[in-house]
């Protein structure tokens, strides 16, 4: 029954809008207004996803299903559950902000810039709502192209190096996922992800499939040691690119774990859980120290992102350690929920921090920490926001950063004291690198003439940061709505991961 549902509208409206902008070309003015209107409209349209969402069920909702390539039983199959819905809302919320962030800043070919972000938005929503493996892969890969152009055209000095590294790294990761998807198709006779969840697989099949998915998702998350593309990409990308990259693109990796790896290969996940935990803790601890040593603000936030995403994967993969120690599944859900909340929260916090750096960069055209000092004296309002986001990044209670980390650490305690202890170092390290950066940039005496001449936030910048601050505080103070929509889906996932497929 070809019915054009809400999810399709959310995917195709921005993509078509972006295409129209590309066709009209650079001659026309007012491209920002068009992009803003379209992205705000998309956000408004996406609100019913939350309002109409039934959090009592783990079944897929807002389902659309029509045949796409019948010869291979590939379907245009969309639907969302509690795991994907928050990420879609995050996407639609952040896109208008990114458009606003590029408002007066982007002078070079602005139409292409805004069009790229709109197309990217549609593709990202597609990734989060696809329930057909091939459709998922199409969106997942297609997204590389606009991001490649965003970093390469509007990026910094070493943008070509960074963007080609980004593309090749991610492409290398995902081609193995394609092989795994094809293999699963041969086993189930369709590309339906829900059928993938149900198909029994032997251990000899699960391990390679798990590794193929792991490669794709680990690059995207990114996990240590395949994270090296991220600092380069972040540093060279324009502000909007960094925001989308940190806030949403990284989440695709985390989302991949809960949508593919855990439910499709639970036994392989269990066998390799220790490896995953080790990699996650490595990211948390080692990358935390690396972040401490950074001189470039964007690089510091990039490394902080890797460390925070380590929490996400830790929360997902401590499940079996909890099960074997306590024998009950209660803590597993907590870990997974923590990971999911951490993803949404990190979307706001890292996005906001990159926006803050962007505000400074637009004024002084440097990201070096050493070039600043005493910003609070000339930009008090900005400093307030910056400090708020920094504290959230450090996991201050009352901000969104606290909720996810707390849940994950709590779950880790049930698994193993040492996991929790190592994970807990982030509270020290995160505070250290973030606040030390704040101390050097924001506080102290005015360091130089550049800082002395800074103007405080414009109305546009204020609006952007205020919106982000709203998100950080709401989730921090009242996480219940977010946790509630996830709970049914998380429970289902817990059942899936604890049920052997052998």
């Amino acid at each position, binding site marked *: 029954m070809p019915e054009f549902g809400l999810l399709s509208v959310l995917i195709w409206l921005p993509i078509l809008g972006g295409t129209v902008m590309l066709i009209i070309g650079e001659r026309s003015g007012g491209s920002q207004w068009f992009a803003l209107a379209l992205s705000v409209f998309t956000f408004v349209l996406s609100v019913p996803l939350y309002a109409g969402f039934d959090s009592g069920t783990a079944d897929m909702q807002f389902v659309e299903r029509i045949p796409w390539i019948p010869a291979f039983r590939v379907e245009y199959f969309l639907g969302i559950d509690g795991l994907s819905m928050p990420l879609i809302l995050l996407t639609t919320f952040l896109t208008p902000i990114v458009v606003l962030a590029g408002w007066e800043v982007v002078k070079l070919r602005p139409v292409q810039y805004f069009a790229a972000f709109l197309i990217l938005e549609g593709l990202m929503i597609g990734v989060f709502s696809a329930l057909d493996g091939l459709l998922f892969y*199409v969106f997942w890969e297609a997204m590389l192209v606009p991001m490649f152009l965003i970093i390469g055209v509007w990026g910094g000095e070493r943008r070509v190096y960074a963007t080609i590294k980004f593309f090749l790294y991610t492409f290398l990761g995902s081609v193995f996922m*394609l*092989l795994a998807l094809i293999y699963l198709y041969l086993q189930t006779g369709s590309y339906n992800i829900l059928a993938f969840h149900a198909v029994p697989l032997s251990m000899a099949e699960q391990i390679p499939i798990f590794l193929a998915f792991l490669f794709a998702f680990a690059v995207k998350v990114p996990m240590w040691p395949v994270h090296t593309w991220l600092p380069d990409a972040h540093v060279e990308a324009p502000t909007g690119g960094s925001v989308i990259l940190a806030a949403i693109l990284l989440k695709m990796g985390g989302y991949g774990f809960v949508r593919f790896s855990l439910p499709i290969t639970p036994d392989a996940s269990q066998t390799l859980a220790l490896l995953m935990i080790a990699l996650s803790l490595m990211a948390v601890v080692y990358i935390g120290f690396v972040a401490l040593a950074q001189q470039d603000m964007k690089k510091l936030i990039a490394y902080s992102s890797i460390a925070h995403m380590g929490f996400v994967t830790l929360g997902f993969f401590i499940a079996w350690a909890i099960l074997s120690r306590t024998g009950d599944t209660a803590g597993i859900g907590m870990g997974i929920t923590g990971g999911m909340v951490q993803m949404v929260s990190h979307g706001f916090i890292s996005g906001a921090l990159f926006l803050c750096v962007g505000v400074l960069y637009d004024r002084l055209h440097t990201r070096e920490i050493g070039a600043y000092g005493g910003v609070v004296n000339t930009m008090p309002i900005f400093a307030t926001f910056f400090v708020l986001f920094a504290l959230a990044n450090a996991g201050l209670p009352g901000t969104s950063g606290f909720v996810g980390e707390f849940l994950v650490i709590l779950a880790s305690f049930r698994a193993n004291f040492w996991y929790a202890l190592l994970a807990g170092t982030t509270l020290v390290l995160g505070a250290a690198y973030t606040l030390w950066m704040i101390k050097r940039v924001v506080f102290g005496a005015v360091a130089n003439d550049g800082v002395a001449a800074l103007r405080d936030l414009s109305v546009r910048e204020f609006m952007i940061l205020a919106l982000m601050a709203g998100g950080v505080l709401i989730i921090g103070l009242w996480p219940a709505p977010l946790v509630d929509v996830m709970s049914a889906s998380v429970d289902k996932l817990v059942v899936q991961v604890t049920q052997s497929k052998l």
Partner: protein
Amino acid sequence: MLPTEFAPAFPETVLGLGICLVLLVDLYLPARWRDVTYLLALVTLAATAMAVSDIGLSGTTLALGGSFVADPLASFLKLFVLAALATVFVYSRAYLQDSTYNKGEYYLLGLFAALGILVMISGASLLTLYLGLEMQALALYAMVAFNRDSPVAAEAAMKYFVLGAIASGCLLYGISLLYGVTGTVQLAEIAQALRAGGADDAVTLVAVAFVVVGIAFKFGAVPFHMWVPDVYEGAPVSVTLLVGTVPKVGAFALALRVLVEGLGETGVTWEPMLGVLAVLSLGIGNIVAIVQTNLRRMLAYSTIAHVGFILLGFAAGSREGIEAALFYTIVYVIMAAGAFGIVILLGRQGDDADELDDLRGLSQRSPWFALVMLLLMVSMIGVPPLAGFYAKWWVLAALLDAGQLWLAIAGVLFSVVGAFYYLRVVKLMYFDSPAGEAPLRQGAALRLTLSVNGLLVLALGVFPEGLIELCARALG
């Protein structure tokens, strides 16, 4: 209408008559009326296409004593060849118009090559196939040498001719051995004879090896690829465009008819051979393409890599693999035609603009055609939602289905290697500033066809179902 015995060859007859007409008319035309030849050539192609569609997509008819076949596959491939050649002519005309060798012979030889390819497609006996192959090859040798004052072109043509002759010799030797083993040159009878026994004979194996060499040469697969870069770079752009596109369909038909239909019984022998050739082509093609500075040479190595993927489809040894190879061939021809179309668009009188650096800043000089080239390059990488992705995906699916995991892994790994040089083209177009303000070639027909060509790659990517279905049905 022709007698029934000749009916399946009706399209070839029409094309042959058209060629004679073009030949005669062009002879008496003054140079400034060259467009008449061009239009006549297009009309000939259209008339042939109508003759093909008259036969349609149903039923298999043998004709001419069992040496000529008209089946759905033949009709499908012929229609595609004719359409592709028409596109090539449209691009070429824009190029030839302001070159010094705007001769009617270009169209004439192009039509001869098409006739050869059509005969190959319908070849039901080894000799018919060989006849078509040679007709196509001789026309192409002459075309490569078109720019007779250029030493590069002469060298390319010489290389092409000598190596091509050796390859034809190999093929012919293989054919003669097969005749010795089975006592026939008709593919159906060969298949029958081999089923009855003799498929494992040492002589058969040697014959298969020689035939594979001949086919690999026509495809331009490593290690029989030496002619490809030189021909691509040395020939006039319009000829490179032709050599790089339509003959690949002929090569596919040759491989399908001989290996699958005739020597299907010896699959165990030729599948691993093609697997090795495929991996070598993927490797050498993709790696050597990285260091090229000339766009045409880069595309030559990229062709070699794509041929590797097509051969992977054959190496899967299943019907699905053949379908995937067919799909890949079609998609490849569409992409390659577009890419060379862009080369023609960039060029101007006396300067072919075929260095990679000539692409610099194309997105500022012409955002639209930069986007078209972006689509083509990204499709060649194999990124969805573009046609090139489905081609790779289908081949990979066929390989995994046949349990050829390692070939599939080699395929994807070299795709990642290959991504680099396509991305460099995108980088030059989008990230760099234009070196000069040289205008792009004008010509409404060129621009329109090129736009359609680029959008086709996208359209087939979003709605791949139609072509997938056609490929499956043509082989059904």
